[in-house]
């Protein structure tokens, strides 16, 4: 067989083998990422000089291919489907095929249970730093919670002046106030969508200084972008939320909490 035919045959019969496993919630994370790209673009364009050059940050790693060594090994995953498991407790590798996409089945409904891994990855690892920051998550910061209305959020005393107006269907941005230990901003559409606060740690103790591997050991399904500058994880105990971690030189510099699919389409 000549090369031309061989190539033709490989490329036309390879489809089954080309399937790429994606994590549960992949589509939602892409949609959320697109919103964040857009919001940053709008903020960059409207707040003259204040922001400077804002790089369109790729959010989240919905896709299983992001960072192989940050994922639990596939052998840890029992094959039993277990729809009743809350998403925050489960990591799933779903191989999506055109068949289930066409049938409109939601891959999020198929979940395989895995045990959260809490041991450090290496015995020589000195272990993650013990932090003593304010706790962000699983629902919010102190009385401020994702999903609260503006009035409810303001009643917590943690919402300061508005710094950016989101317009008709976007997120307005408010300064986080009322707690000297943290600074940050809160993104509110009709309800609270994203809480950026610094410095904070998650209820699991994860925060600044943690390595990518250490974060990955705590959150099943955690992954980063290939540039390893941003990573995200489902929030244990809050199926509607994600932690977003920023990394510099492989260590966490910032943690924020957001709805899985924040409703800020227009920034």
């Amino acid at each position: 067989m000549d090369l031309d035919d061989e190539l033709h045959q490989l490329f036309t019969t390879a489809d089954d083998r080309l399937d790429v496993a994606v994590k549960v919630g992949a589509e939602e994370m892409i949609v959320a990422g697109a919103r964040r790209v857009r919001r940053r673009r709008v903020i960059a364009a409207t707040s003259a000089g204040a922001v400077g050059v804002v790089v369109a940050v790729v959010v989240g790693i919905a896709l299983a291919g992001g960072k192989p060594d940050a994922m639990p090994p596939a052998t840890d995953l029992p094959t039993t489907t277990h729809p009743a498991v809350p998403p925050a407790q489960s990591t799933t590798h779903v191989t999506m095929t055109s068949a289930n996409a066409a049938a409109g089945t939601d891959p999020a409904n198929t979940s395989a249970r895995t045990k959260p891994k809490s041991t450090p990855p290496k015995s020589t690892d000195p272990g993650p730093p013990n932090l003593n920051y304010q706790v962000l998550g699983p629902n919010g910061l102190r009385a401020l919670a994702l999903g609260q209305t503006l009035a409810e959020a303001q009643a917590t005393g943690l919402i300061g002046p508005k710094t950016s107006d989101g317009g008709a269907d976007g997120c307005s941005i408010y300064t986080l106030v009322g707690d000297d230990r943290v600074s940050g901003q809160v993104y509110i559409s009709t309800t609270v969508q994203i809480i950026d606060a610094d410095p904070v740690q998650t209820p699991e103790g994860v925060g600044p200084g943690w390595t990518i591997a250490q974060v990955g050991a705590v959150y099943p399904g955690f992954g980063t972008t290939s540039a390893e500058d941003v990573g995200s994880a489902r929030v244990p105990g809050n199926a509607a939320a994600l932690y977003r971690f920023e990394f510099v030189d492989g260590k966490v510099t910032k943690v924020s909490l957001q709805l899985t699919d924040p409703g800020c389409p227009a920034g």
Partner: protein
Amino acid sequence: MDDFADFVRQALPGLLRYGHMLTGNPHDAADLVQTVLERLGARWATISRKTGDPVAYARKAMVNAHVSRWRRTRKESLLAEMPDTPDAPRHDPFEDEPLWEALRGLPPRQRAVLVLRYYEEKSEAEIAAVLGVSRGTVKSQASKAMATLRGRLGTSVGGV
């Protein structure tokens, strides 16, 4: 944005397969698809209005993002020819496929030309339009790619 969510749901598996074909491995495929879809989603209203076929638009964006990313990072990644780390064996559905292995060694633009030609069955003129190069370039890239593949397959064990 709901519209975009629907698009992602429907197009994702196909785009991931396409990315796998373009990049040669599922990890780069996932990364490429995510990057391109997030950018596309940020401008969804405009793009869906202006293009009748967002899947084709996304594929084209993937080809160009992949080719240009490689161009930018070529110096740094010159030493790492194989995209997969050799000390972390994973199940690879193509591992017994000498042709797939040979394709891995091609520079992304040459590989893209072959994917567009054999997977998408595009004409030389169409390939030139997607990549933004002349037909002559498409022709020369394709023949370089074929020569490299022939060379590799000729020396590999079990190669045809």
